[in-house]
C-alpha cells in the first residue's frame, strides 16, 4: 500500500480543496484527514460516521484542597507555572509531567487521563475516510495524527485498497512530523509569494530529513509568476519533482461554498484542467515508485 501526504507548510494554499478534488479522481483509496487541529475535509466529503472513539492521551494534575497542606513543594517543582498561589492547577498550563503528583507528600494530587478528542472511521461518496476532532486547546495532536493514519491503513488493508490519500497539517512542528513518518511521498502545495517560497523551503527540508520523495505544485500561479518560477527553481535544485501550475480560479471557492469537489462543481474550468493533469502526473509517479519497489 502507498501513502501520499499532501502538505503545504503555509496554511491556506488550497491543500484541502486540492485533496478533495483528487478524491474524486483517484481509485481504490482511503482518505485520511491528518489536519486534526483544523480538520476541514469533512465539510466537502460529508462523511457518514461508522465508528466513533474517544481519543485519550496525556494527563492533567488536580489538587484536592481537603488533603493539601499548602507546603508549596509542587509549586517549587513545577516548571510550567501551572500551580497558582491558591494551589489550584491551571489545566491549560499543565504539561502533564506528573512531577507534582509523584512528589506530593500528602498524596493530595490526582492525575487522571485526558480525553482530548474523538476519532472516526467513516464512509464518503469517494470511499472510506479516517478523521478526527481534537478538543480545543488540547495537546498530543501528533499522537492523534499517528493514530488516524494507522486506522486509515488498517481500513485500506481490510478492504484491499492500495492508496492512502492524506491531508497533512500546516507548519513543520509535531503534527506534521507525525504525518510524514513512513509515507511513500509528499506533495507540497505552494503559493507563489515571498512567504509561500519561505514556507515551502522549510517544509521541503523537513521531508528531506525523513528521506521522503517530494513533489510540488503551485496554486494561484498567475498571482505572481516570478515567485512561482522561483519556487520551481528551488524545487529543481533540491530534486523535488515539479507537477504543475494551477491558475487562480474562483471556482475553487465556489465549489467549497457548495460543499462540492472541484469536479463535481464544474469539471471544465481552467483550474480543474490543471488539477486533473497534476493528479495524472502524481499518480504516474506513485506507480513508478511502486514498480521500482517491487523489482
Amino acid at each position, binding site marked *: 500500500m502507498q501513502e501520499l501526504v499532501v502538505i503545504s*507548510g503555509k496554511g491556506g494554499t488550497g491543500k484541502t480543496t486540492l485533496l478533495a478534488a483528487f478524491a474524486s479522481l483517484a481509485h481504490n483509496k482511503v482518505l485520511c484527514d491528518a489536519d486534526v487541529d*483544523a480538520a476541514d475535509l469533512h465539510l466537502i466529503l460529508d462523511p457518514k460516521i461508522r465508528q466513533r472513539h474517544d481519543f485519550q492521551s496525556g494527563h492533567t494534575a488536580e489538587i484536592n484542597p481537603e488533603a493539601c497542606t499548602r507546603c508549596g513543594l509542587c509549586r517549587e517543582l513545577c516548571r510550567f507555572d501551572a500551580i497558582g498561589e491558591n494551589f489550584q492547577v491551571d489545566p491549560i498550563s499543565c504539561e502533564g*509531567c506528573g*512531577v507534582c503528583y509523584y512528589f506530593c507528600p500528602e498524596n493530595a494530587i490526582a492525575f487522571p487521563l485526558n480525553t482530548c478528542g474523538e476519532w472516526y472511521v467513516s464512509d464518503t461518496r469517494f470511499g472510506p475516510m479516517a478523521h478526527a476532532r481534537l478538543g480545543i486547546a*488540547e495537546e498530543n495532536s501528533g499522537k492523534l495524527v499517528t493514530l488516524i493514519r494507522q486506522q486509515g491503513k488498517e481500513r485500506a488493508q481490510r478492504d484491499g485498497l492500495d492508496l492512502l490519500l492524506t491531508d497533512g497539517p500546516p507548519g513543520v512542528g509535531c503534527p506534521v*512530523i507525525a504525518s510524514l513518518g513512513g509515507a511513500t511521498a509528499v506533495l507540497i502545495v505552494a503559493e507563489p509569494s*515571498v512567504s*509561500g517560497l519561505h514556507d515551502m523551503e522549510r517544509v521541503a527540508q523537513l521531508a528531506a530529513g525523513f528521506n521522503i520523495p517530494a513533489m510540488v505544485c503551485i496554486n494561484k500561479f498567475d498571482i505572481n509568476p516570478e515567485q512561482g518560477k522561483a519556487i520551481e527553481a528551488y524545487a529543481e535544485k533540491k530534486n523535488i519533482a515539479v507537477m504543475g501550475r494551477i491558475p487562480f480560479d474562483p471556482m475553487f471557492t465556489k465549489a467549497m461554498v457548495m460543499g462540492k469537489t472541484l469536479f463535481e462543481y464544474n469539471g471544465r474550468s481552467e483550474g480543474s484542467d490543471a488539477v486533473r493533469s497534476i493528479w495524472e502526473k502524481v499518480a504516474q509517479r506513485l506507480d513508478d515508485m511502486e514498480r521500482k519497489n517491487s523489482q
Partner: protein
Amino acid sequence: MIISVASGKGGTGKTTIATNLACSYEGSVQFLDCDVEEPNAHLFIRPDIHDVETIRTPVPEVDMEKCTLCGKCSEICQFNAIAVLGETVLPFPELCHSCGGCMAVCPEKAITETGRELGIIERGSRKGMAFIHGKLRIGEAMAPPLIRKVRENIRPDVLTIIDAPPGTSCPVIASMKGADFVLLVTEPTPFGLYDLKLALGAVKLLGIPCGLVINRSDIGDDHVRAYAEAEKVPVLMEITFARKIAEAYSRGEMPVETDDHWKAMFRELYSRIAAIVQTPIEKTG
C-alpha cells in the same frame, strides 16, 4: 497593551493584518512573530536584525559512574524520554518535555541537564519598531517552549502585536495567553467559518475579549457574519478581495506603506480595539 492576531484557518491574511496594524501605529510598538513553525512577518516588515540567540531546552544527561540502574527516572517520565536498557540509561532528548522530574527523583544525583536546540530567536528593529521572532529548528517537534521564550521579550510599556500560529492547539494557546485582546482573522467560506468556531472556543476558554476581521469579504457566503452576530463578536473590519492586494502581498509589500487610505483603515481598526479593551466588558461564555 498586547494584541494577539490569530486565525483558526491558515492563509486568511493574519500576517497581513498583524504587520499592517503594527506599521500604521503612531507610537512605540513591538512586533512578536510567534508563528515559529512558519515565521513570515519579517518578509513584510524587513527589519534590521541586531542579534541572534540560539534557544535550548534542558534535557537530562546521566552520569553512569553514579547511576545504580534503579529505574526511578524512567518510572516518573510521562513521555518515555528516558529508559533503562540493560546496563545503561538512555535519554531520548527529542521526546523530553524538560520537566526536570528525572533529575529531581534520581536518588544518586546521577542526572544533570544539558540542552536540546529548539531554534533561534532574532531581534531587530525597523523605524523605531522593535521586532522579535522565533524560528523553530527543522525537525524539532515542540513549538510552545520556543513561543514562550519569544514572549519573554514583551515590554509592558509599549503596544505589543503578536502574530500567532494558525490552529487551536497548544502553540496557539501559548501565543494568545495573557493578551489583552485577540483579533481573529477569517474569510467567509465554510472552511473559514468552521475554523473560526474552533478559534473562538479557544479565546473564550482563555476569557480574552476579541473581535473579527473578515478578509476577502465578498467571496463566499454570509454565514460568518451571521455567526459573529449570534455570538456577539464585533466585526471590526472587512476587506474585499482585490487582485492588486493579493499581488502586492505576494511581493511582500504592505499596503499601509504606500496608501493613505489603508493607513487610515488600520488606525481606525486600532482605535476600535483600544476602545473595547478600555471599556470593562462582561466575559461571555
